Structure formats: C-alpha cells, structure tokens
C-alpha cells in the first residue's frame, strides 16, 4: 500500500465508490479525459466511461440542477465545481432544491448528491481561485458542509458524503492537496459525518479549525508545547450539522478557545462556534474567545495573498493572549 496525497485520496474514494455502487456518477467541467484541473478524477474516465465520468458544458447552474435531477432519479451524483469561486451559480439549485427536496416532498423525493470543490487559497492562483466561502452553506438547513484536512479524512469523509442520503458540500483545501502523503487503506471504510476530530489532546487551550489551517494550528501547538503550553487541536471537519459537544468538552477542560479559519472574520463560520461558546459554555471560559481569520477584505491577488492568511505566529500569539487573560 503506497502512501497517497489528499487529492489522491479523493480519487481513491471516488474510484472505490464507483466500483461498488453503479449509481455513482461524476460530473463537471474537465472531469473526463483530462481528469480534472487538479487531477482529482484522473483515470476515472478510462475506467468507468464517458457517461459515468461526464464532461459537462461550461455552466455551473446547469451542473447543479442536472445533479439534483440525477439524484432525484436514484443516481448518486458527485458534481465538481472547478473552484469554490465558481460555486455561486450553483446556489439556487443547492439551497432551493437539493437541501429542501426531502422536506418539500415529505420524503418522496430526496437528493443524495455531493458537490465537491477545491477550496481556499495559498497556491498563487488567479482571481476567484482562492476563496474560503464555506460560510455560504452553513446557514442552509438540510445540507452538510464537510472539509477534510488529511488524506485519510479526505478518503473516509468523501465515502461518507457519497453514501449519505442527503446533499453534502465537500470542500477540499487545495493548499494541502499535495502537502504530504500518508497510507490510506482502500478498504471502503467511511468516517462519521457527525463528529469533530480531536487531532491533539491538550489541557491549556483549545484550537478549533478546519481545512488547510489544521497545518498552522498543529504547528502552533508544537511551538506552544515547546514553551510548556498544552494545546488541544480540533478539526471540525463537518461544519454543519455541527458536533458542538466535542468542542464544548474541550473548552470545559481548557477554558480557552482560539478559532482559526481562512475565511474573512465577519460572519465566518468561526462566529457560530464562538456564539455557541458564549451561549452554552460561558462559565467555562477563562478568557475571551479569539478568532484568528482573514481580514474582512477580498482575497488579494497572489503577491499579497499570504498577508491575508492566518499565520502560525498569529495563532500562537492569540493562544498566548488567552493564557494571559485573567
């Protein structure tokens, strides 16, 4: 078993599920012969043919609606938005149909579809190719929003997303697509969509994050450990429906929480977590809840892009502020 990258884990999960479930189809722009602009569907067209790995016309609204139609007919479509920045024309179908089909019809018609999209910044890409816009979908009932942060979690969570009887938005942090490899057995084992993953146990402060920032948070935890601070790191992974219990338990223990995300601060999903802490855990809090995020500005073009991305140093500093608080 060779070690694989996060993007290869995506491919492996797609191939596994397509092999075992003939109703799984992949569709999107350039997913066919080209294997996707990031190679997420590389080799699938040759294995499963041009109808199950379907190159669509260039029309995101169309892709989204056709995906709903496929799902309503009992297929399990996995649609790709080429970049998260091109997902907006898909929103009407996702919000008004995918997320409400079951509810609208009292369960008569459902929408077991997945929308995948490379997500987030940090690869020196052109405009609209580096957004972190997961918040858009987190206020939509009936939808799951999932963001893996390692090859193993990409594999297990994508399998779960495809098998889930309801629609799932699956954002893939492109900055860490090829960051490192790990062994991911191709055993078809899904991971749960209703838990946060505690990546590191600690007792002094809790770092809560998702996606590519898991990297910076783990680095920050190491740096803090070197100074004798014990840091718990939680990868939320499935943003909605949120497993708040795991976060609450951790903060109950540490009394301090720093939330880290790539999206702009205002009304980013970090706000929801901080709000829950203010509602449900206020007596556990020994310090203000900190959010380390992008500023409330547009992702700059790449020359200044990293100035907008939360850094390990900022996370360390925020954690220390919580420790310095009364």
């Amino acid at each position, binding site marked *: 078993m060779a070690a694989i990258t996060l993007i290869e884990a995506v491919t492996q999960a797609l191939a596994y599920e397509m092999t075992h479930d003939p109703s799984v*189809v992949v569709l999107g722009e350039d997913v066919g012969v080209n294997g996707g602009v990031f190679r997420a569907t590389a080799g699938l067209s040759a294995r499963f043919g041009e*109808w*199950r790995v*379907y190159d*669509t*016309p260039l*029309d995101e*609204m*169309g892709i*989204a*609606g*056709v*995906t*709903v*139609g*496929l*799902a*309503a*007919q*009992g*297929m399990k*479509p996995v649609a790709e938005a080429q970049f998260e920045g091109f997902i907006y*024309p898909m929103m*009407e*179908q996702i919000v*008004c*149909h995918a997320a409400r089909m*079951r*509810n*609208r*019809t*009292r*369960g*008569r*018609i*459902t929408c077991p579809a997945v929308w995948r999209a490379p997500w987030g910044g940090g690869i020196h890409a052109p405009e609209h190719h580096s957004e972190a816009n997961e918040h858009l979908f987190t206020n939509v*009932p*009936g939808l799951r929003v999932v963001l893996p942060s390692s090859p193993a979690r990409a594999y297990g969570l994508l399998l779960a997303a495809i098998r*889930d*009887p*309801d629609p799932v938005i699956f954002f893939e942090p492109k900055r860490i697509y090829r960051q490192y490899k790990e062994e991911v057995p191709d055993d078809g084992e899904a991971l749960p969509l*209703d838990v946060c993953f505690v990546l590191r146990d600690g007792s002094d402060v809790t770092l809560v994050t998702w996606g590519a920032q898991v990297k910076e948070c783990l680095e920050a935890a190491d740096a803090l450990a070197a100074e004798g601070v014990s840091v718990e790191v939680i990868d939320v992974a499935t943003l909605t*429906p*949120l*497993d*708040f*219990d795991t976060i609450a338990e951790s903060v109950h223990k540490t009394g301090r929480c720093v939330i880290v995300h790539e999206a702009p601060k205002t009304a980013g999903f970090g706000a929801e977590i901080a709000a829950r802490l203010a509602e449900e855990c206020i007596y556990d809090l020994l310090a203000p809840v900190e959010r380390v995020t992008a500023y409330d500005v547009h992702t700059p073009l790449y020359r200044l892009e990293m100035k907008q991305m939360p850094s390990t140093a900022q996370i360390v500093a925020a954690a220390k502020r919580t420790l310095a608080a009364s």
Partner: protein
Amino acid sequence: MSIAASFEIEYLQYLDADGKLVRKDLPEFAKNLDHMVELYKLMVSTRVFDTKSIALQRTGKLGTYASCLGHEAAHVGVGSSMKPEDVLAPSYREYGAQLYRGVQPRDVYMYWGGDERGNDYQKEPARHDFAWSVPIATQCLHAAGSALAFKIRGEKRVAVCMIGDGGSSKADFYGAINFAGARDLPLVAVIVNNQWAISVPRRIQSGAKTLAQKGIAAGLFCIQVDGNDIIAVRKAMEDALERARSGKGGSVLELVTYRLGDHTTADDARRYREADEVKDAWTREPIKRLRAYLESKKAWDEKKEEAWKHECDEWMDNEVNSYLETKAQPIEAIFDYTFAELPADLQKQRALALSLEKGAH
C-alpha cells in the same frame, strides 16, 4: 454568400378557433373519438377544478393560487401524451397535465393551502414526477438531469419540463436545453407561452420572433404549436417524445396560448392589460373549439356536457372536503424531513419546539 446553417420553425394547428379542421392529415389518436372525448372531459374537469380553487381562495380557505384558466389544451395535451414511465417536471399551474398523471385535486389544495403534504403525490405515475417548482425555470434542469439518468441507465424514458414564456428567459432553461443538445438527452422542453409573465408582456420578454426558436441555440428540434388546439399539442408532443425515446435527441415546443385569468389570486391583471385583449383571447380559448369539433362529429352534446359538469362538481366537492378535513401537521413535521436522520443539534431544537408547543396549549 456562403450559408453555414439554415432553420425553419413550423407552426402546427389542426383545429382553428371555431373547431374546424384546417388540415387533412389527422393524427392516429385523433381518429379515436372516444379518446378525444376523454381529453375533452379532462379539459372540462380541469376548468371546474380551477373555478373551485379560486372560490376557495376568495373565501379564505386557500392561500395564493395560480389559475390555469385557458391553458387546458396545452396542459392536458402534454400530460396525455406522456407514458407512465416518463417524468414530468412542472412549474406551478400545469394541473391539467398533472391530473392526467394521478395528482389529485386535494394535493393541489394542500399545497396552495400551505401544507407540504400536497407535494407527496400518492399515485403513480405522478408519484415519480417532480413537485411544483416555484423558483422559475429551475425544474428544467431537473428534467435534464433525469434525462441524463435515463441515458446513463439505458432506459427508454423521456423527461418533460414545462416552463412559461417568461421562464424561458431564465438561465436554467437555456442550461437545460444546452445540456440536452450537447449529448442528445431525451428531454422535451415545453414552453407554455401564455403571453404574460405576471405583468410583463411577451413583446418585451424576448426579441425572438417565436419562442420555439430558442431551441436552435442548443441544436434541438423546435416547433411552434397552437396551444389552444389539443390535437396539435398532442401531436407535437407525441412526435417529440418519440424522437427523444428513440435516441434522436431533445425538442423545444412552444405552445401558444393565453392566460385568461390573473397571474395568481394575489395579482390584479387589470392594472397592466387591456380588457379588449382578454376579450379577444376568449374567442380562441381551447375548450369551446374542441366541443364544437366533437359536437360536429356527434361525439358530444349538451346533455353529456351537463352530466359531466355535474360529475366534476361532485368530484371536486369531495376533494375540497378531503382537503378541508385534513388537520395541520404536528410541529415535529417541520424537523423530521430536514435530514434522513435528525442530527443531534436538531433533536435538541425539536425537543424545545415540542415543549414550547405544550406550554402554549
């Protein structure tokens, strides 16, 4: 001058406004007068149903309702041409098509009466059809997706979507026909051109001479049909379905008709359109002409008309009663269809809602 491509849009009509045949080549189904009577009866019952619905709304027993007055030939023509295994993706007023496929008047009342159970059609083939689609044109893509599913699975089924003249301006309509054209998906897109999109007239909705020609943009077969002539509608549909079923690709049909009523019960069309235009449109309405035709063939008469209307009245009263007797759903219903399995957070909210509900009573 070198010509890269050329196109013609046919206009199809069999019965003129007076119910006279204008063509000799009557399609097979139209030679069967029993069947024509069956279609006529459904057109009449659709109108009786519609009248009843408006009355319900006016007396506060129904929410906003979108009438189908004047669309009976277009709607019944589409519904009656489809095979059970085909799939219909309607917008919100095509009751004539839906009743043919097993949607019950009580479903319609439930839906416009603010109860999701109206979308839970119980009878086949409606049970596998899409529910009403309020966001204009979005249903066209559901049909295209269904057509793709049929193609992938090698099923000989066709997906039909219905859309208004206004709706054919919206992006998704174009997306659907473009998807279908690119890979010969079995899609029939039916534009019901009733001349108005709420207050916006056909004239400023599109600069195209016909709406049928929109299909040219996607390389589909296109035809314009007298949408008040059920023979023409049915014939154009049968041909389009057959082409799609046999792998020859999709079609765009424009059914030219007229919205004789207000847009919905929340609308007052007198604000924006002339009474004369409506009066004139009444001379071309679909039921009168089919009746004239059937009477000329001795297949229908005043007595049958009376009897059938009476039967429809009873049918609709029964449906109305069933609707009015249906109790509202319990509060849990607003939670229980959000996901297949209720996530932990929602379980808590559901419990809270239940406790508030108890507190309130």
